[in-house]
């Protein structure tokens, strides 16, 4: 069962905690501590969108519901 996810970060909610990046098995997400979001938090970005397998880990650990994720399951 192959599947692919489309992941994005809602910057108006993200606090740059890095949990999503920490638990992403494919290094799709990363937090850049040297750059700040407009809310003043470290900037969390999707750096490798193609690699996303839609496992949902980022969504499930994000405490601020800042991850938007759509998964295509190819049964």
């Amino acid at each position, binding site marked *: 069962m192959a599947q692919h996810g489309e992941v994005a970060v809602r910057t108006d909610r993200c*606090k740059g*905690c890095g*949990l999503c990046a*920490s638990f992403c098995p494919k290094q799709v997400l990363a937090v850049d501590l040297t750059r700040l979001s407009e809310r003043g938090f470290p900037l969390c970005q999707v750096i490798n969108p193609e690699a996303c397998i839609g496992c949902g880990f980022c969504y499930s650990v994000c*405490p*601020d519901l800042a991850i938007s994720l*759509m998964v295509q*399951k190819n049964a």
Partner: protein
Amino acid sequence: MATVSYERPEALLDVPFHYCPGCTHGITHRLIAECLDELQMTGQTIAVASVGCSVMAYDYFACDVVQAPHGRAPAVATGIRRARPDRFVFTYQGDGDLAAIGTAEIIHAATRGENITVFFINNAIYGMTGGQMAPTTLEGQVTQTTPWGRNPAEAGNPIKVCELLATLDGPAFIARVAVDHANQIHQVKATIKKALQCQLEERGFALVELLSTCPTNWKMSATEAMRWVHEQMRQQYPVGVFVDRLREDQNSGRGGSAGGRHLSGPSAPEAVGLTALPAGYTHKE
């Protein structure tokens, strides 16, 4: 080809949380909300917010909410349940709230088998007030009021709430889970759901202890904090199910359930085995 989209649960209003970056309060809120959605309980639920970082939970949940004095959420919940046995009630309490000042209230709500659901956030510290020792603070843990680490000879031993409550006859469901890894989230949610299910089925008192983080007062990154839960807290507080009368025949249970309910709800979800999955913290920090 099917498309699944992860949606904000309806039981969680679309406002930003005030929690610190990486604090697990937010995850737990979302999981509770998802369960409320799935069990279709929101409209009939009155939640009780307690005093702690989560005091403003009243702003987040879409159900009616009352904010209780520090430690008294189980008493407030009892009052609601007795006044409105046709409504659901859950409390959301920290470890200072539930296991220190509110010790009597939680024990007696449990022994009464009060038909409420309690979410107990054990982050081993007082978050709101800036990091003092909690009853659940680990031995040796440094806090504002244990500057050289908690020394049981002076500051007492950590309290294991689930083990304590499990000796009582009232509870119908008691379990401990850990919000310490992405791979735990499914289990955490299933346990939360089961605890709410207990109330739907009028089985009586249910409590889920959630091993949680407080990156701010632990002075750790969010990921370090989860790792600390996994490596330190789980030692003292093993996850597992301590009481489960959900599957028992209702009449055969020892404990009574106080405050019956008039509405009927959907049926029980699958029982969930709670084995501690090996969690990996593989990624860059």
